[in-house]
């Protein structure tokens, strides 16, 4: 029934993110695109570790059964914090660029190529 729907949506999300990074004309849009790509990769990793009818990899008073693979979740935790660190830094660069250039338009932020 569900087929490979999570993987398909991951790919579509990656394409959206890359589209935002390449074609949109605002630096904050670039950061948004990066965020979307990063979330998509996270989703990809977590769905790689999903086992059908599995339970969360935590031993509690729950009915037993096959457990979802835990490693991708650990990797995703790392990757989420890295993502927020990256976007915070990029946004602070955006603020500085706006202060010195007065715009965030990617076609106008080009003082380096005179």
């Amino acid at each position, binding site marked *: 029934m569900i087929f490979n729907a999570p993987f398909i949506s991951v790919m579509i999300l990656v394409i959206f993110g890359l589209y935002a990074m390449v074609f949109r004309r605002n630096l904050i849009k670039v950061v948004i695109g990066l965020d979307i790509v990063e979330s998509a990769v996270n989703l990809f990793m977590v769905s790689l570790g999903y086992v059908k009818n599995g339970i969360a990899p935590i*031993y509690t008073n729950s009915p037993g059964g096959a457990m979802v693979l835990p490693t991708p979740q650990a990797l995703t935790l790392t990757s989420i914090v890295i993502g927020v660190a990256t976007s915070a830094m990029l946004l602070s660069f955006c603020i500085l660029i706006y202060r010195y250039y007065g715009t965030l338009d990617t076609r106008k932020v080009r003082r380096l190529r005179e």
Partner: protein
Amino acid sequence: MMSKIVRTQANFLYPFILIFGFYIVAHGHLTPGGGFQGGAVIATGIALVIVAYGYDRIKSWIKKSTLTATESIGLLCFILTAFIGIGTSFFYNFLANSGLLFGDRVSYGVNPGYLNTAGTLPIMNLAVGIEVLGGLGAILMYMMSYGKEVDK
């Protein structure tokens, strides 16, 4: 500064968020959660206070330098906990199953779990929690302060 309703509710909610964040940190090895998640929850609590009171009121309560120092100290605790095990190897979990502090054994399989298990994991959880709280809080304060303070 936002309206009085928001401020009152922020006063009321902030302890809850703090307690819940520390619950997530402390029970990281038993229930979902851990250092990052708890630290992020507490940092969001800081964000709540910042947005409720505004930067001008906050800056005398929470100092940026304090937050960055908190972050450094959390990281130091983390790396030192890793260093203590270096007699065997870096990041060796020397407390697990030792019977000492946090060293109780657990049986395999489904069990309710106790807080004093898992060796160095709770200590590392706490250290990372402090680190993430300081780091994310510092990022928030830096972004909030830019343009507010007069450039010398």
